[in-house]
């Protein structure tokens, strides 16, 4: 079995904020914490996935979530995923499948075979779970297949699969017509999760505690929104490179005071940087949006490369898994489970009404358009990770729709004074191609050549505008 060869350690990415720099140790502490919790046997640990709006339920019942996508990402960032991917391949899984899942399955199978952690497991390794909570959402097939596949090596570890659909955007339909039965279903699914966890932990849900945790999450959501909106400032005080660190409290630590406090500190730090006029890059020339795709975790240094060309990333769609709750018009309820279900639906349908008002728009496209305008974006960068259909299919089409609005020719718009104004709305885009953790798909030279060419395009557009 192929294994053991690790890639050279990558150069550490420079962060723009102290908050982002504090994330690495935080994640390490979290991983070692799960190992310790398991060893002490005080708490149950469960494999699970991010963006399921179930953290509050976990924490109210003192279940420790083990975010398996996170561990795979760590293996990728440490350039130590290949040996686990190869192991999964040798078991019969195709490399074309989700490499997060392959890495996790390869790791689990190895740990089960050895009866202990594989040699030099990143940060001590991924703990054996007491149970696994998968989710069959409207998207991400691997979420309901990954743990099922892992059960081949851990047949004694039970799975509970929750279904969390949302109504897909359909141009000719008001999604409110169907929200009622979607909500009822999600509530039932979440209540099923509560019952499963109660059985596993032998505890009863404390609904007052759950309500407090939901409230804490809600406040964190709004705080994150406020914090990230500060990045509209020019120069931009924090870029997407840092946001790939600060996604950790958003996605892995929700419903904890620590996550809330993290964003209190980050907000303060950004406000101070803005007051000092301090940007992510010293001389900000271009403002780019990370418009889609999970990052290549082993190549986060590419953000520094963009920075070296004067390009900053004030906004990204990836991992910004919150939206302002005060703009959602969620029905009032005292039942925290019902609220979680409404919040889930509110998040996924957040852009629907706006999209309907703009011909040719669609929720993902509408979000891009809004943020292009709000964050004064000069260009869009996307990443196509070959192994993930969930977050990457549809990106080309979104750029195609955007190109209908942002044309490479001057267009006339009605300005504030009611006068016709000639404006250039050209918006170049760049699609980078590799993978989330499979480093064999990545070429630093090719990637940087593409970035150079893109920056030249941005420069030429700026020169033309000036002319």
């Amino acid at each position, binding site marked *: 079995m192929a294994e053991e060869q690790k890639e050279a350690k990558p150069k550490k990415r420079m962060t723009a904020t102290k908050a982002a720099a504090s994330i690495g140790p935080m994640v390490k502490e979290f991983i070692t914490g799960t190992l310790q919790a398991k060893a002490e046997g005080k708490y149950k640990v469960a494999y699970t996935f991010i963006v399921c709006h179930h953290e509050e339920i976990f924490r109210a019942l003192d279940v420790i979530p083990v975010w398996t996508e996170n561990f795979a990402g760590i293996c990728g960032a440490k350039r130590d995923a290949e040996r686990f991917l190869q192991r999964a391949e040798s078991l019969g899984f195709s490399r074309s499948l989700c490499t997060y899942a392959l890495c996790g399955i390869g790791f689990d199978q190895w740990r089960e075979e050895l009866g202990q952690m594989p040699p030099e497991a990143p940060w001590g390794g991924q703990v054996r779970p007491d149970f696994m909570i998968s989710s069959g959402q409207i998207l991400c097939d691997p979420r309901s297949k990954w743990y099922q596949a892992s059960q081949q090596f851990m047949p004694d570890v039970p799975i509970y699969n929750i279904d969390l*659909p949302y109504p897909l955007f359909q141009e000719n339909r008001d999604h409110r017509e169907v929200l009622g039965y979607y909500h009822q279903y999600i509530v039932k699914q979440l209540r099923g999760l509560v019952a499963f966890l109660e059985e596993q932990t032998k505890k009863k849900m404390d609904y007052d505690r759950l309500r407090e945790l939901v409230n804490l999450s809600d406040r964190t959501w709004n705080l994150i929104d406020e914090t990230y909106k500060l990045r509209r400032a020019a120069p931009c005080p924090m870029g997407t490179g840092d946001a790939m660190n600060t996604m950790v409290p958003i996605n892995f630590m929700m419903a904890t005071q620590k996550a809330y406090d993290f964003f209190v500190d980050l907000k303060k730090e950004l406000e101070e940087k803005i007051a000092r006029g301090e940007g992510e890059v010293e001389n900000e020339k271009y403002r780019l949006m990370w418009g889609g795709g999970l990052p290549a975790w082993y190549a986060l240094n590419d953000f520094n490369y963009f920075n070296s060309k004067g390009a900053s990333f004030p906004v990204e769609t990836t991992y910004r898994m919150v939206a302002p709750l005060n703009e959602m018009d969620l029905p009032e309820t005292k039942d925290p489970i019902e609220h979680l279900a409404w919040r889930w639906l509110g998040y996924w349908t957040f852009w629907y009404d706006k999209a309907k008002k703009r011909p040719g728009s669609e929720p993902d496209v509408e979000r891009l358009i809004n943020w292009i305008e709000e964050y004064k974006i000069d260009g869009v960068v996307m990443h196509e990770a070959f192994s993930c259909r969930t977050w990457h299919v549809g990106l080309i089409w979104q750029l195609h729709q955007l190109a209908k609005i942002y044309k490479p020719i001057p267009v006339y718009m009605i300005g504030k004074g009611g006068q016709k104004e000639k404006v250039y709305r050209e918006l170049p885009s760049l699609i980078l191609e590799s993978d989330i953790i499979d480093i064999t798909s990545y070429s630093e030279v090719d990637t940087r050549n593409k970035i150079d060419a893109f920056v030249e395009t941005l420069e030429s557009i700026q020169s033309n505008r000036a002319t």
Partner: protein
Amino acid sequence: MGDKQSHIFDTVKNYYNNYGLRAKELKGEGKQFIGYVCSLVPLEIITASGCTPFRVRGSVHEPITRGDTLLETIVCPYYRSVFDLSVKGKYNFLSGLVIPHGCDSMVRSFSAWSYGLPFSYFHFVNIPSVCDESSLEFFDAELDAFRKSLEKFTGKAITEEHLRQAIRVHNENRDKVRALYEMRKADPPLISGTELTMTLTAGSSLPIEESNGLFDQILTEVKGRGKSPLKKGPRIFIDGACLDNIELIKLVEELGGNVVADTICNGARDHFPKTEMGGDPISALSRRYLGKINCPKTYRENKAGTFEGDIASRFGDIGAYTKEYKVEGAILYVYKYCDPFGFEVPARKAYYQSLNIPLLPLEDVYSSGTIGQLRTRVQAFLEMIG
């Protein structure tokens, strides 16, 4: 082959090669065809609306070109091909298209379809990922919403009686397919896998009554055959997703194998499960499409608590078919980038091992360009088990 027999198979071949021929003719007469992708679209509701369901297919012979300008190449090649043909206008005679939540690619590309194709009706059917009482209740409501959207499109009410009638005629179709599969039990089979796949593919482009008529004629012809069109050879089972082109099956049979059964979407997966008659028709449909269609996309709980028990439950239909059709070897044919099937490959391998059935797992890209490679592998496999 007698004259009459070759005549009916010529008709099938014509419908297969000129896919959509009959739909174009009937469109001229005012009939509306609604395209669908995947086995999870409840066809009975389309039929009950007065429209005709039409299975949109790809082509292994046509290079994917325009489709790739709008849809990522990390989508499974089968779906890419279907999309490519659609954006090139091959199915412009359709009035609408229904896409279910069959996989991530279907979900994520829905806008690319609905904004890019010139149809007046589009609908997305959300299929639950689990199968329990609450998901069936949800699915009832989702199918009712589908019914209402078709009512809005056609301007006509879809009554329970319309639905019952549609269920009846689709069940008849499934009975006829079962009868055709019975012809495969002879050794060698009275109908080849190539003929059967071509027939079922042609049938999915016709109004259900015409499809029933066609299958009746094929049945009569095959029953009247004195001998098999195939020489006796290893009895092969094809396991996988949608195989709407005959090339793989034809290859197996050219190399001496007899393809006798399958789980493929346009084969047993689509046609074997029937809808219960009586009771609420929408509810009966949700139970068929969610509960009975054995697609890896739907998570089935491991009730046994063991891996062996789990695979016996999830893949039990394979075990039953292989026994019923006296299978001697199986080919697991999976498309590259197909997550639902791809994650099941090791478990399926283990299951075939438990049945003592030799297995050839293939990952392919839905292109005639790989036939040469497949030929070598299939030949070696048949020699091994032969």
